[in-house]
């Protein structure tokens, strides 16, 4: 039996081949193996169940294996789905077609158990790499545990970040910069944005009131502490590209588009794109979450603050993405909070008044917001 079984879906309209594959996989120790003879049904199951490996026949009536693969790749899953195409088609053009659709590997028909085992060993190595996600997120949660009032902040903001990245990837301006790797990486590493807070003294980090100028200077250091920590990890593992993204996010998520942010006062596109995205996600979550020093703002108020910050605090293109995806933001919050905790507009008039005052002042971060929102 395998120590860490993964869930596998076999898709084949040929029940003989499907049965053979399923039984062979059981024999090899894979306990969670499911079978579907129809690609449309298979897609539904892939969307709703946590399959880590899909082995699909190429030629099937209706949706083909290549179409299924393409469809899976067009959707973002929390974890990577390793896709093996099963085929007796052996021409180079077919292989290219499969690879272009996003297939990770091929398996020839009829399946040879040795080949199947070797292919799955590769698949398991790739899938195991995804376990780093758990470690990364655990690390982020550990850092967050010193400041636990934010609830599911990390869970929400990584989903907000992903939504923004997905949308921006569809725009001409970012089409070459944002691909599925970027989207996965920002989902993975955005929770590390405040990891440097582990280096901030409790009397500052947990202070309920407004920080003094000196205290705020100390607080700002969480960006450099976090990025230096991640830089050290990157030096040890230079091929871990996602750590580069994590460094950029930790270092630059408090930079502002007009150059008035910290720690370096970077301006415009000198701020890494990932940090410009996370900035919007982070602030939106801070605004719509109840803190000891403020009630949660309604979505409408938060949206107005972010819109007003376009070009000053935030990248206008990212703000445009936020506007386009704002209903998804509300849905994410509802889902992750387990209840509709964003107050309705009418119920948060006080918040709206405060926010309006902040917005008109141009920089909401300097007018009584606790450091949790801005640091």
């Amino acid at each position, binding site marked *: 039996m395998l120590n860490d079984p993964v869930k596998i879906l076999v898709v084949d309209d040929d029940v003989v081949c499907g049965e053979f594959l399923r039984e062979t996989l059981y024999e090899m120790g894979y306990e969670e193996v499911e079978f579907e003879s129809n690609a449309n049904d298979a897609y539904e199951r892939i969307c709703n169940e946590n399959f880590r490996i899909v082995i699909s026949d190429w030629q099937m009536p209706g949706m083909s294996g290549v179409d299924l693969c393409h469809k899976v790749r067009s959707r973002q899953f929390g974890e990577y789905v390793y896709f093996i195409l099963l085929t*007796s088609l052996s021409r180079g053009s077919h292989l290219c077609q499969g690879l272009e659709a996003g297939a990770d590997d091929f398996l020839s028909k009829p399946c040879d158990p040795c080949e199947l085992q070797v292919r799955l060993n590769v698949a398991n190595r790739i899938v195991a790499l995804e376990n780093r996600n758990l470690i990364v997120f655990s690390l982020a949660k550990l850092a967050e545990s010193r400041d636990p009032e934010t609830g599911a902040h990390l869970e929400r903001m990584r989903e907000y970040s992903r939504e923004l990245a997905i949308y921006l990837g569809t725009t001409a301006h970012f089409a070459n910069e944002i691909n599925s790797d970027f989207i996965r990486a920002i989902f993975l590493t955005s929770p590390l944005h405040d990891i440097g807070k582990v280096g901030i003294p409790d009397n500052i980090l947990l202070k309920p009131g407004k920080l003094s100028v000196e205290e705020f200077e100390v607080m700002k250091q969480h960006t450099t502490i976090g990025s230096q920590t991640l830089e050290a990890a990157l030096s040890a593992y230079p091929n871990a590209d996602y750590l580069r993204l994590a460094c950029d996010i930790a270092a630059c998520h408090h930079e502002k588009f007009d150059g008035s942010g910290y720690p370096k006062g970077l301006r415009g596109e000198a701020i890494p794109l990932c940090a410009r995205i996370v900035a919007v996600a982070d602030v939106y979550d801070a605004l719509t979450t109840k803190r000891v020093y403020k009630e949660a703002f309604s979505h409408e108020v938060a949206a107005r603050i972010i819109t007003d910050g376009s070009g000053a605090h935030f990248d206008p293109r990212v703000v445009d993405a936020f506007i386009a995806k704002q209903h998804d933001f509300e849905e994410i919050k509802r889902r992750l909070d387990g209840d509709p905790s964003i107050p309705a507009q009418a119920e948060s008039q006080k918040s709206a008044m405060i926010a309006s005052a902040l917005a008109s002042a141009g920089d909401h971060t300097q007018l009584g917001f606790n450091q949790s929102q801005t640091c």
Partner: protein
Amino acid sequence: MATATALNHSSPIECNELLERCLGNETLVLRVLKKFVDQVGTDLDLLVSAIAGRDVTESIRLAHKVRGTSLSVSALEMSKIAHDIELRAETANEADLLKLTVNLAKERSRVFDFLDTFCIATKDA
């Protein structure tokens, strides 16, 4: 395994190859062969209909499927004939294709007769 040791070269199924592919699991061999019997009858009928109806795309798909199914159980001659139909479905005339289909049906009968001797029920398929 009885099925493997009783074979000779004219066997329509390469049982040693099949047994090896099934990791030496005789129960799995029998289960896969039962599935094969259930499926290939239906597919062959559909293939004949597709050829008679001059549905080239469906003919190719079904011939490809029969080829794959046959290969899975190491019915090599069946697989070869099905492959021939798959390759020629677009260009050959209907009579030639039906002739090939008859050959395929004959080979299927030979496979089924062979399986009958090992108590795999094929009469209802």
